[in-house]
C-alpha cells in the first residue's frame, strides 16, 4: 500500500509500546456485534496504473468543452486559465495546508486571502469582501439570510432574471428560517418589474446582472426603491468576467454583492468546486457569513495577517453564529486571485471586451437564421435565443453533430413555458470559425426537421 508507511514490524513494535495485544484491542469500544470481520464487498487495492486506466476510461466517455464548438453558460463559463495558475495552486504549501488557524506559519495563505478580499471588494465596488463561500448560489442564499437578520423582516423578492437554481437554493435555506421568497415571473427584462413587488415587509431584493437570460441592467433605480422601503439590495453576478466591463454592483447601490467566481482561474469541473464571492457595505461587516482575513502586527511590529471577527462564526458563537459555514473554497480563491493578479485591470478589461465582441459576433450569426430570434437586447457574453423548435431537442440534435449549442432554459426552469428558449454563451475560448458555422448548421437542422 503505497500511501501507508507503517510496516508489519512497525505495527508490532507500536502495539508493544501501547501495551495492546493486537489491533482489535484498540477497537474494543466499538460494539462487538457490529465489528466487520474482514474487508467489505468492494474491490481490493490497485496500483497507480490500474486506477489511472479506470478513471481515464470514465473521462473518455465525457465530451470536453474544448473538443469542439461549445456555447454553454448559464452560471458556469469556459475561460482560458493560464498555466501558471494551476502550477501554483499545486504547490504543496498551498494544496496540503488547511485553514490558517496558526497565523505565524500560515502567512502565505493569509496574505493571499487578504489580497483576494481586496480584489473582490474592488471588482464588486463594495467596501469589504470575505474569504469566499462555496459557490455563487450558496452565497446568494446566505446573502438573503443575512438581509433578513439585518432588517428583521421576512420577505425576499427574487427577480425573475435570477438563475432558477440560485432561486431554488435560496428558497431551501430561507424556507426553514421562516423567510418567504417571492420569485417573480421569468422574462428577459425581468429586473424592470422588480420595484413593484417591494413592500414594507421586504427584507431584500435580489437582482442579477447580467441576468440568467444574459440581459444587463442598471439596477440603480431598484437600489433607490429598495432603500426607500428599508430593504437591502442584493446584486448577483454569475459571470465574474463581466465585472471587468460593466458598472459594479457597488456603483449601482448594492448593499450585498454576491458572485460566482469560477470564471476567473477555475475550470468547469462539471459544476464544482467553484468559489463564491461575497462583499458588503462597511456597516454590515459584523453580520457577514464566512471567514474574514484582517491586517495586524506581530510582537515586533511587523505587518501580518490573521483570521478575524470570528465571534460571528460557528466555532465561537455556535447556534447564534451568522452561518454554519466552516471550510470554504480556499484553493479556488487562490486560483481566482492568481489569475486576477496576472490579468490586472488592463487584462481583465480587455478580456471582458473580447468576450463581448465574441457574443456580438454570435448574435450577428444567429440573426441570419430564418426563424431564430435573439431575445436579449443588452448583453455581455450570453444570449437568450428563441428557436422555432424545442430547445432541448435542438441541443441533443446538435450534440450528435459535435456541437454543444448551449443550455435549454427549460432545463433550469421546466415550468416556465419557455421550452423554445436556448441560452448561448461565447467567451474568448470560442473560435470565430465555430461561430461562423452556426448559421449553416442551424439552418440545415431546421430544414431537415421541417
Amino acid at each position: 500500500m503505497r500511501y501507508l508507511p507503517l510496516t508489519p514490524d512497525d505495527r508490532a513494535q507500536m502495539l508493544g509500546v501501547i501495551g495492546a495485544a493486537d489491533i482489535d484491542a484498540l477497537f474494543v469500544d466499538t460494539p462487538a456485534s457490529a465489528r466487520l470481520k474482514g474487508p467489505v464487498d468492494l474491490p481490493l487495492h490497485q496500483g497507480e496504473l490500474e486506477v489511472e486506466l479506470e478513471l481515464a476510461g470514465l473521462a473518455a466517455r465525457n465530451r470536453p468543452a474544448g473538443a469542439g464548438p461549445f456555447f454553454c453558460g448559464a452560471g458556469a463559463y469556459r475561460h482560458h486559465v493560464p498555466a501558471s495558475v494551476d502550477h501554483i495552486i499545486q504547490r504543496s504549501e498551498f494544496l496540503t495546508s488547511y485553514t490558517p488557524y496558526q497565523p505565524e506559519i500560515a502567512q502565505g495563505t493569509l496574505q493571499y486571502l487578504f489580497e483576494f478580499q481586496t480584489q473582490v471588494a474592488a471588482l464588486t465596488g463594495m467596501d469589504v469582501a470575505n474569504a469566499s463561500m462555496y459557490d455563487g448560489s450558496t452565497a446568494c442564499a446566505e446573502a438573503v439570510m443575512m438581509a433578513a437578520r439585518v432588517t428583521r423582516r421576512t420577505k425576499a423578492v427574487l427577480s425573475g432574471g435570477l438563475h432558477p437554481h440560485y432561486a431554488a437554493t435560496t428558497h431551501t435555506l430561507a424556507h426553514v428560517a421562516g423567510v418567504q421568497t417571492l420569485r417573480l415571473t421569468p422574462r428577459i427584462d425581468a429586473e424592470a418589474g422588480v420595484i413593484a413587488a417591494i413592500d414594507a415587509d421586504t427584507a431584500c431584493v435580489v437582482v442579477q446582472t447580467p441576468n440568467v437570460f444574459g440581459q444587463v441592467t442598471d439596477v440603480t433605480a431598484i437600489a433607490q426603491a429598495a432603500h426607500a422601503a428599508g430593504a437591502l439590495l442584493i446584486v448577483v453576478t454569475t459571470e465574474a468576467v463581466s465585472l471587468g466591463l460593466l458598472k459594479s454592483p457597488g456603483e449601482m447601490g448594492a448593499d450585498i454583492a454576491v458572485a460566482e467566481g469560477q470564471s476567473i482561474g477555475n475550470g468547469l469541473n462539471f459544476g464544482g468546486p467553484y468559489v463564491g464571492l461575497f462583499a458588503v457595505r462597511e456597516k454590515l461587516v459584523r453580520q457577514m457569513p464566512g471567514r474574514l482575513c484582517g491586517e495586524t502586527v506581530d510582537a515586533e511590529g511587523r505587518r501580518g495577517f490573521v483570521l478575524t471577527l470570528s465571534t460571528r462564526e460557528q466555532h465561537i458563537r455556535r447556534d447564534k453564529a451568522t452561518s454554519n459555514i466552516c471550510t470554504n473554497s480556499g484553493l479556488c480563491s487562490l486560483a481566482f486571485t492568481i489569475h486576477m493578479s496576472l490579468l490586472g485591470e488592463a487584462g481583465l478589461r480587455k478580456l471582458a471586451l473580447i468576450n463581448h465582441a465574441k457574443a456580438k459576433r454570435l448574435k450577428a450569426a444567429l440573426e441570419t437564421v430564418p426563424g431564430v430570434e435573439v431575445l436579449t437586447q443588452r448583453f455581455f457574453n450570453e444570449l437568450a435565443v428563441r428557436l422555432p423548435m424545442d430547445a432541448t431537442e435542438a441541443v441533443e440534435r446538435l450534440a450528435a453533430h459535435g456541437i454543444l449549442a448551449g443550455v435549454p432554459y427549460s432545463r433550469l426552469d421546466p415550468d416556465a413555458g419557455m421550452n423554445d428558449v436556448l441560452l448561448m454563451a461565447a467567451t474568448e475560448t470560442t473560435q470565430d470559425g465555430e461561430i461562423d458555422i452556426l448559421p449553416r448548421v442551424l439552418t440545415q437542422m431546421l430544414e431537415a426537421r421541417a
Partner: protein
Amino acid sequence: MSMQTIGRPTRPETNAVAAAAPEGAKGLLQYEPLIFELGGWSKTGVDLPDVAADVADDLGDLVRTAPIGLPGLSEPETLRHYVRLSQKNHAIDLALYPLGSCTMKHNPRLNEKLARLPGFIDIHPLQPQSSVQGAIELMDRLSHWLTTLTGMPAVALPPKAGAHGELCGLLAIRAAHEARGDARKRVLVPTSAHGTNPATAAFAGYTVEEIAQTTDGRVDLADLEAKLGPDVAAIMVTNPNTCGLFERDVVEIARLTHAAGAYFYCDGANFNAIVGKVRPGDLGVDAMHINLHKTFSTPHGGGGPGAGPVVLSAALAPFAPEPWIVHDQNGYRLIEGREGVAAQAFGRLSAFHGQMGMFVRAYAYMLSHGADGLRQVAEDAVLNANYIKARLGDLMSPAFPDGPCMHEALFDDAWLEGTGVTTLDFAKAMIDAGFHPMTMYFPLVVHGAMLIEPTETESKAELDRFCDTLRVLALDALSAKDDPAALERFKAAPVAAPLRRLDETQAARKPRLKWTQPAAPAPLAAE
C-alpha cells in the same frame, strides 16, 4: 582576510554580523509585499488579442468608467510572489500536521492528475447528459462505495463541505417529519460537538439543546433520555466523538432516539477512524455526512474546497436533495427537479451537482486503497494516535487516560498547572520546533484541550521525531515552574517562524480587511 575563497568550503567569520535585509528577508525566506504594492495598473501577465476600442459602445452607460483598482503582474513576478508566499506556510508535505479533527493526511498526486483530465475538468454541468455519461457513472460508482462502506442504502452527493452536509441531513430529517405532519422544534447536541452542529441546527430552523457528557467523555445517556421528547426532531452525535473516543453506547443512543420518534444524525467528520471496521448503518444511524477532504483525502487547500456527501437511511432517502442519479437501459441520468422517484426531494442545496472535482479525487483514493486498504487506513490511524498517547501520556495528561482512543489523542492542561505555560504557549513553542501545533482549546469540554491527530500516513520515524520533540518541549515546560527563563521562552514563542505572535485583538478591534492606498507616497511604480 584576503584569501581567495571561491570554490572553498565557506565558514562564517567569527566577528561577522549578519547584515539585516532592509525588509526582513532571512535565508531562503523573502519579504514579500502585497500585490497592490508590486503591480501596475497597466501591467498584465496575460497576452490577449487586440479588440476594437468601440466594441462596447452598444452598452452605453452600462459600462464602468472609473478605475477598478486591480494591479497586474507579469508571469515571472507572479510566480515569485506566490512562491515566496507559499514558503510562509506549513504543509502536510513538509511535516506532520496534527490538527485534531481535521485529518491532515497525505494527498496522493495521482488524484490531482486524474481530476485534471479534460473529461473531468473541462465538462460543463449543464451540457447534454448524453455527453457526460462517464461523469455521472463516476458519481454513481462513488455512491456505491460510500453506501457500501457505511452500510447505508442511499447517499446525497451535492453538499459542498461538512457543514453543508449537516444542513443536508437536517433538512432531510425536517422534510421526513413534515411529510408525516409531525413538525418538531428541538435538536439535541452534545456539549463536546463541533460548532457547526449547533450552528447548522439553528440554520435549519431548530432550537438547540445540549446533552451533557459523562466523566469518561461520552454522551450521558440519562441526560439524553431526559431531554428526548415528542418535539425533538433529531440528535446530532459525532462518532467517533470530538474527544477521539468511540461512543460505546451508540446502539442504545439510537434506540432511545428512535423510540422518541427522532432521527439520529451522526457527524461523520471522524469516519476515518472506523472506515472498513464498523458501518454506521449497523449502529442505527439515519444520516451521516462524510468529509471527502478528511476520510478520503481530497486536499484541504488552505481551507477548502471540501465535499460533504450524506448517507441516508431508508426512512430519509426519499427526501434527498436534487439532483438524483438514476440508471436504466438508456444509461445514466440526473434528475434535476422534484419528479419521478425524486418527487419528495427537499429541494436544491446549490446550483449544480456537487463537488465533481472532489468526487474524482475521492474515487481514485478509494480505488487505490480498495476495501482492504481502507480497513488498514482506519487501523493505522488508530494505532498511530494510541502510540502518541502512549509515548506522551507519562509527561502530559491524557484527558481520558483509561482505555484506547480512536484516531486522535486528547490531552488537557492539568500537567501544565503551576508552570505558567498555557496550551497556547506550548502550541507556539511547537512551531519553533518545526511542527504545526495540534488543535487547541477544542473540544470545549476539556480544559486547555490539545487534540492530536497524526493520521495513518505518518511513518513510525516521523511519529518518533514528533514524540521526541514534544517530550523535550514538555520537560522544558515543566521546568518553567522554577525557571523564569524557560517560562519566558514559551511566552516569546514562536521566534523561528516568519512572524512572531500576531496581535489578534487589534485585528478585531479596528478591522483592516483590505488594502487601501496610502495617501503618500504613491505605492505603484511609474511605468
